[in-house]
């Protein structure tokens, strides 16, 4: 289990190698890597600054990981999320899930990203030619997270 919130970049290949090293029970790994886009809402984006709530961020990510492990049989989970100033093309987030079978790995990876987007306390400030603007939350993100609501 690993949750990391950091300003620095990460090496996807090295993370994958460490994630799977010596673990021959793993049948499949799914990895998602989120990047900074150079355009948003029709405006050019020259940089993005991610603010977060230290302490709560880690607590929420750990809770999301725990929920994923409760729902799927996972060998391991890795979540890395960056904060601070990033530029187009930079990596923002990485989620990796490992399981004996692919369905659990695919589904849990998507679940982790969907829940992270609506629960982890991060906020994006974009720099555009018209000045800086805070990114607004999308209804589509809420809808994506709501899909995972359990029927009671």
């Amino acid at each position, binding site marked *: 289990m690993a949750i990391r919130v950091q300003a620095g970049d990460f090496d996807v290949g090295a993370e994958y190698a460490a994630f799977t090293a010596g673990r021959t029970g793993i049948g499949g790994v799914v990895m998602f890597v*989120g990047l900074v886009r150079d355009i948003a809402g029709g405006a050019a984006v020259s940089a993005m600054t*991610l603010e977060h*709530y230290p302490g709560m961020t880690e607590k929420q990510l750990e809770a999301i990981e725990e929920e994923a492990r409760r729902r799927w049989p996972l060998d391991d989970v890795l979540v890395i999320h960056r904060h601070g100033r990033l530029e187009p093309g930079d990596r923002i987030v990485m989620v990796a899930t490992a399981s004996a079978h692919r369905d659990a790995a695919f589904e849990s990876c998507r679940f982790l990203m969907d829940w992270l987007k609506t629960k982890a306390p991060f906020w994006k*400030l974009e720099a555009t030619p018209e000045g800086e603007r805070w990114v607004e939350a999308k209804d589509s993100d809420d809808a994506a997270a709501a899909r995972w609501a359990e029927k009671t």
Partner: protein
Amino acid sequence: MKILYFAWLRSKIGVPTEIVELPPEVSTAGALVDWLKTRSPRHAEALANSKVVKVAVNQEHVPYDHPISATDEVALFPPVTGG
């Protein structure tokens, strides 16, 4: 009580944190948001639309009817946009 502000709530209010003495009748997250609006015109403007003012108590997301007490760490922020 310690209050933390993030993102545009922080920039509109002008400070990242403040320590406040709560009146006894302010006992829920929603009542706190309403009470904070009375502190200054900046607070009133930043907190005007409660749909985009989210509350965390002791680092957990809570609804507006959640109880609060003087020893809690309370954070106010816009809907999150990570990932």
